[in-house]
């Protein structure tokens, strides 16, 4: 029997209803609109996109901080998308989350040791001397000093608070940690410390990360695979090297081209895309990117492209770059499209 993937997300949808206007139909924010992907044990999947693309909503649906509207989220083969909280609880041992702003996610009145001990106590995993030993071990594991056990969150620097958040997530030995912009609030010199820590932990403990971020260079550095989201949908998903070396979706290309290069000899070829992300309340018909796409054609405005494989593990949702025809002419098409 083959083992089920660690995480299988299928057709995940999250819509928010807005209050009805005086006369109009009820309006709906299409935050996430039919997102599917799998994750294996020990891998890092980067989830990137600009603000409002739904990447954080996906992350929060998976740990059930947000109730998905529809779709399934299977953890080790078991669908957790609609579990009652009582049945969800044991699943949380496998699913932990680390937030962008560690300060607002740590109770300011609690001591650091108690914050890390809390999940161990909640799940009845340790008590007494064993609890103390485990907490001290976690502190060491994330690079905090034992003499900081009694400090409160405000006595830690930003980077140390993020270490504290990571220690708390690690306490229950999860299989997957959802990292929601874990380094974007940190100064660059501190970012590297936290990124390296996450890498070390993965190597030593075999953790999987769903790494949500807007910083493409960080995602390239840390991920095995990367999914790019635009207006609630995945437009491209691929192994890291494929995505960064040969991006296929015009939006992925545009994103990569927009990142300023820290090398003045290598100034960006200015291929800027126009405009900004449209409102998720009434996303464009057809391909959602067509309003900004430099290569859009008539059909892109009418027909929404589906994700199609163009290489092993590399899927693209684009009529032009991943057309619904044989592999050979698909490649040809992609070349002429450039």
């Amino acid at each position: 029997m083959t083992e089920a993937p660690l995480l299988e997300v299928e057709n995940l949808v999250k819509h928010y209803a807005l209050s009805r206007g005086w006369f109009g139909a009820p309006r709906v924010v299409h935050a996430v609109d039919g997102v599917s992907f799998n994750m294996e044990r020990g891998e890092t999947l980067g989830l990137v996109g600009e603000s409002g693309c739904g990447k954080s909503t996906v992350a929060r649906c998976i740990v059930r901080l947000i109730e998905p509207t529809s779709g399934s989220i299977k953890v080790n083969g078991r669908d957790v998308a609609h579990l009652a909280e009582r049945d969800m609880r044991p699943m949380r041992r496998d699913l932990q989350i680390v937030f962008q702003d560690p300060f607002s996610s740590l109770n300011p009145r609690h001591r650091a040791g108690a914050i890390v001990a809390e999940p161990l106590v909640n799940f009845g995993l340790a008590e007494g001397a064993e609890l103390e030993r485990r907490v001290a071990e976690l502190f060491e594991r994330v690079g905090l000093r034992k003499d900081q056990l009694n400090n409160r969150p405000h006595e830690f620097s930003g980077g140390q608070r993020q270490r504290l958040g990571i220690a708390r997530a690690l306490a229950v030995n999860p299989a997957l940690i959802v990292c929601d912009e874990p380094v974007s609030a940190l100064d660059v010199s501190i970012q590297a410390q936290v990124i390296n820590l996450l890498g070390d932990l993965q190597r030593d403990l075999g953790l999987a990360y769903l790494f949500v971020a807007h910083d493409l260079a960080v995602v390239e550095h840390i991920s095995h695979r990367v999914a790019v989201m635009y207006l609630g949908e995945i437009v491209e998903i691929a192994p890291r090297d494929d995505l960064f070396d040969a991006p296929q979706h015009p939006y992925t290309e545009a994103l990569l081209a927009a990142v300023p290069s820290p090398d003045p000899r290598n100034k960006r070829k200015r291929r800027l895309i126009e405009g900004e992300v449209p409102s998720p309340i009434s996303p464009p018909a057809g391909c959602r990117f067509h309003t900004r796409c430099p290569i859009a054609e008539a059909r892109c405005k009418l027909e929404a492209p589906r994700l199609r494989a163009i290489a092993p593990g590399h899927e693209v949702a684009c009529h032009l770059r991943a057309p619904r025809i044989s592999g050979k002419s698909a490649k040809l098409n992609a070349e002429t499209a450039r």
Partner: protein
Amino acid sequence: MSALLEVANLSTHFHSGGHLVRAVDGVSFTLDAGGVLGIVGESGCGKSVAAMSILRLIDGKPGVVAGDIQFDGQDLRVLDESGMRKVRGGKIGMIFQEPMTSLNPVLTVGRQITEAIRLDGSFSNAEARDRAVELLRLVRIAEAEKRLDDYPHHFSGGMRQRVMIALALSRSPKLLIADEPTTALDVTVQAQILDLLLDLRDRLGMAIILITHDLGVVAETCERALVMYAGRKIEEASVADLFASPLHPYTRGLMNSVPRLGDETSRRRRLLEIPGVVPSPAAMPSGCRFAPRCRLAEDRCRAAYPQWRAYGAGHFAACWRAGEAPHD
């Protein structure tokens, strides 16, 4: 060419909680007309306070500003408050990270821009409105005429920043100070705004000071850059020299600690870390302020602050070991 802006020995100190906080400590630089200077550093390094001090936006009471600021033939340090008000928003425009906090939410964009234009008294209402349309076109806002009657909340983040730029340009400044102008924006919009700023510089000939924490932004948009750490300027060079041969261990550390996009060799490899954290302003080290985090630090680094020295044409650094330090 004579300098447009000459800042010498700028210091801004605050009294806070019984401590003297040296937010900016003896910073000097010059900027030629039409030049683009980057000031780069991490949070708390003093880069924003330095810019605010130039515009005298630091409250006089708790803050003590010292040094010499010559701008366009004027000594800004001796200028009275009404003269200073003419400089702010006149010859020097300013844009910030969060445009929404600088725009009045209950006035139309057109009203705010025409008001700014009419401040110097030489435009009629109708002329000011024409000029406002022209400014919105200049910052590439489509259907400029119609959009004058919109309120700030009708604009997206990137469009608001364009409106802020139009406002800053309303009285044809010779210098635009941009404090983290793209930090709150998405990367595709950031590229548009940076592109716009450089285009405006070329067309209008104004100089730009770009304050940012992002080395990529500096590399792409600036001609010269100075790097600040804990209130001090620690390195200054042309952008080409700074990135080709950074001298200060902090500058090198910053460059090595960020992963580079499209760099296959850095994928999943350990990043170089700068250990520790920025010193607290209340407990500054007596010697080099970076010494506690520096791998090259030795006794003299901890004993005395390193001298500001030239290491080649236009390339300066404050580090006892700058010349000899091996590359990482």
